[in-house]
């Protein structure tokens, strides 16, 4: 199969073919309009990336906690988030490819303890599936696994210079300024290694695109907070993907707009595709190796997920585009305080728990589901405090171990068993008791 007239590595072609297939399958499905917007934009992104590869453009690699606005403002520079292909293979490709990447990384000595997103990234780069980087940007958010993948990327591509962004573990003004200061240093680094000059007018446009994207994401969350939730739960986690790869681009804006418009239309039309009985805040990682699980939860259990931690986009204000410094500050603040996971994982457990409580209230949830991705040590390390907080607030909480990209850790049937038992035996009876009480 040829993409843009050229034969590509098989894994890329599999993603492309699956995207085509899904798009064809869902084209006339009114329930899937939001999903179609996501699929179309992922495809646009792949076209853009491969075009840049064919044109010999420079590529900047980075890890999960970074947003690409500064790269986009350089013009005609490609961006690769290391786990990109592993994630796409899992969500819109062949899950087996993702698991193969994981196995390749582990066979090369990369520890099984690390996040499967990062193992998948390391496996894909060892397989040679990405264009070589002209430089690497490494950031220590959202978690320790990022430190590890940056060290592995820097080793595998030791001829590519690395710039480290050090994000402190605080949530204050001093931290935002500190990160903004590092962005100021990053600009000449990127200029030097990409051979492009930073275009500050272009950055202004990029930031304005980001601002419009932010507004769409806030609207999207507002529509999703309506009960019953009308948009399929499987779209919950898209914010995370958007921010890592598309933030500041027309692709990201279009994706956010399609999500918001779809959510609005669904609420306004009032057409429901399933009978919502229970609403849960899905806290931690989505089940990306089988997004049909969300369909099962809705159809079988009447369980909807109005929002999850990957989808939540905090209201931190828009980027001020009045000056270079204001833009760098705005980008820094957004990356530290809005980026899903980086917001909750790099600081204290207080932020993690407070965000959950706010989401639970705002999205009118009946319970929480802590989908414990086994590599998320920051969350597992706070599980005792989180459980105590939920107990104190009277919120039923399901906690289980699984892996977001590796189906071999907890199988679908076991996952279904845990969720079904929790909803039917704990949450629905508790909700009924609450109803009787009131």
């Amino acid at each position, binding site marked *: 199969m040829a993409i843009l007239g050229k034969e590509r590595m098989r894994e890329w072609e599999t993603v492309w073919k699956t995207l085509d297939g899904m798009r064809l399958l869902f084209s006339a499905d009114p329930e899937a309009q939001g999903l179609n917007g996501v699929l179309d934009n992922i495809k646009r992104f792949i076209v853009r990336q491969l075009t840049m590869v064919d044109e010999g453009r420079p590529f900047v690699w980075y890890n999960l906690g970074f947003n690409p606005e500064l790269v986009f403002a350089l013009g005609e520079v490609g961006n690769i988030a290391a786990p990109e292909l592993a994630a796409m293979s899992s969500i819109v490709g062949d899950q087996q490819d993702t698991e193969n990447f994981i196995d390749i*990384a582990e066979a*090369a*000595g*990369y*520890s099984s*303890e*690390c*996040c499967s997103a990062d193992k998948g990234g*390391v496996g894909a780069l060892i397989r040679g599936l990405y264009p070589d980087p002209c430089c690497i940007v*490494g950031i*220590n958010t959202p*978690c*320790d*696994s990022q*430190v*590890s*993948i*940056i*060290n*592995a990327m*820097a*080793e*595998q591509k*030791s001829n590519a210079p*690395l710039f*480290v962004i*050090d994000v*402190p*573990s*605080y949530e204050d003004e001093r931290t935002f300024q*500190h990160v903004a*200061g*590092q962005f100021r*240093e990053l600009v000449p680094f990127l200029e030097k290694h990409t051979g492009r000059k930073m275009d500050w007018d272009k950055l202004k446009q990029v930031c304005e695109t980001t601002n419009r994207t932010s507004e769409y994401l806030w609207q999207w969350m507002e529509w999703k907070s309506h009960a019953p939730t009308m948009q399929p739960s499987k779209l919950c986690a898209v914010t995370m993907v958007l921010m890592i790869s598309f933030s500041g681009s027309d692709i990201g804006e279009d994706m956010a707009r399609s999500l918001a418009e779809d959510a609005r239309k669904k609420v306004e039309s009032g057409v429901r595709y399933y009978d919502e009985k229970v609403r849960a805040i899905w806290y931690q990682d989505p089940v990306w190796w089988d997004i049909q699980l969300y369909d099962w939860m809705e159809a079988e259990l009447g369980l909807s997920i109005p929002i999850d931690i990957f989808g939540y986009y905090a209201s931190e204000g828009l980027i001020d585009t009045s000056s270079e410094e204001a833009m760098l500050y705005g980008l820094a603040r957004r990356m530290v305080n809005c980026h899903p996971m980086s917001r909750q*994982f790099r600081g*204290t*457990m*207080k932020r993690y728990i407070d965000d959950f409580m706010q989401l639970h209230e705002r999205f009118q949830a009946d319970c929480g589901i802590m989908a*414990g991705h*086994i*590599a998320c*040590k*920051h969350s*597992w*390390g*706070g*599980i*005792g*405090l989180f459980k105590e907080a939920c107990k104190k607030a009277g919120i039923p909480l399901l906690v289980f*171990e699984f892996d977001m990209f590796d189906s071999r850790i907890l199988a679908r049937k076991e996952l279904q068993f845990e969720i079904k038992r929790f909803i039917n035996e704990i949450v629905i009876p508790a909700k009924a008791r609450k109803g009787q009480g009131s």
Partner: protein
Amino acid sequence: MAANSKKDDLIKELNDVLQTTRPECAVNSKEKVLGYFCSYVPPELLLAAKIYPVRLSGLGVNDSSSGDAYLSHLTCSFARHITAGILDGSFDYLAGQISINTCDHVRRANDVIIAKSGLGFHGFMSVPRSFRESLLPWYIEELERLKSALENHFQVKVIDQGLKDAIEKMNAVRGRIKALDLMRREDQPRLSGSEMLAATVAARILPPEKFLEIADQLIASAKESEPIKNIRARLLLTGGPLDDPRFVRTIESQGAHIAGDLFCFGTRGLGMEVEQGPKPMEALARAYLYQVPCARMMGEFPTRYQALLDLYRDCKAQGIIFQRIKFCQIWSSEVHNLRHRLQENPVPLLVIDREYGTVSTGQVKTRVQAFVESLGR
């Protein structure tokens, strides 16, 4: 031989200190004692505040249940043991603790300790994860903030001269560690790797004056003692936190001699001399930030690898053992990176994942025995 007996007594004294992680002399004199988590916390700052610094270790904690309950079984057992020790009162002499952003496990242990322990003081520093010079001022600022917090809480004043005196003391400790390290590197070593580890861990628990007293006696008695016999292979030990001489003893029971080490509780964290100068806080920040880096530092593997190669050569080592506590992520790309480098520069490498507090004697013995045999010894 009398010197051997004296040396054994001193090593026992050091090992006894490890088992309780209690600086008796400080506790008895009613001095304030603060525990700290990481090799990026300079004990000099505490000494200058007339507070005894103790690097936290869980060796005296046999039951990690309360730590497990809060931190789950999926986090590092080192952090869980220390957390349990603090929650259960094993460290009842502590006036407080200091954590940094070493890793997610330590950060969460800090959250739990703050929420659930009765300790009166909790310090925290966010230490940069890169050598880039422009990040040094942040570290200095973090040290200044910690200093202010200590001054406010304990009603003390940290002055530059106090810092300089503390630097001098700790440099003296480093000097003794270096002297002991050279003795265990000798062709016919008089100090084993496990004895060396007992010394380096105790150096972080005992008040400097007490450690210097014991170290001087140890150096003198080791000089007179018989060299270690029946060494089959000289090895280098590296990796994540390791504070348990029993683990090293198990390795050495198979005829291996740990001729050098590169980990934070070993000589790495005491490897750098802090320069004396007009700006002691900056000197501390510089020395600690630019020490041979822990894997928490990003993109600094080449520096650590070069230090490892230099040590390998200096110790005349014949192989490397890399050890890591299970679930540790910051050290989890190290084997990948080492293997990548060692493709061009083959060095025998044994990788051991372990649980803290359990030596797993049989398994470790079997693996080390096979490794030593694979070296043709």
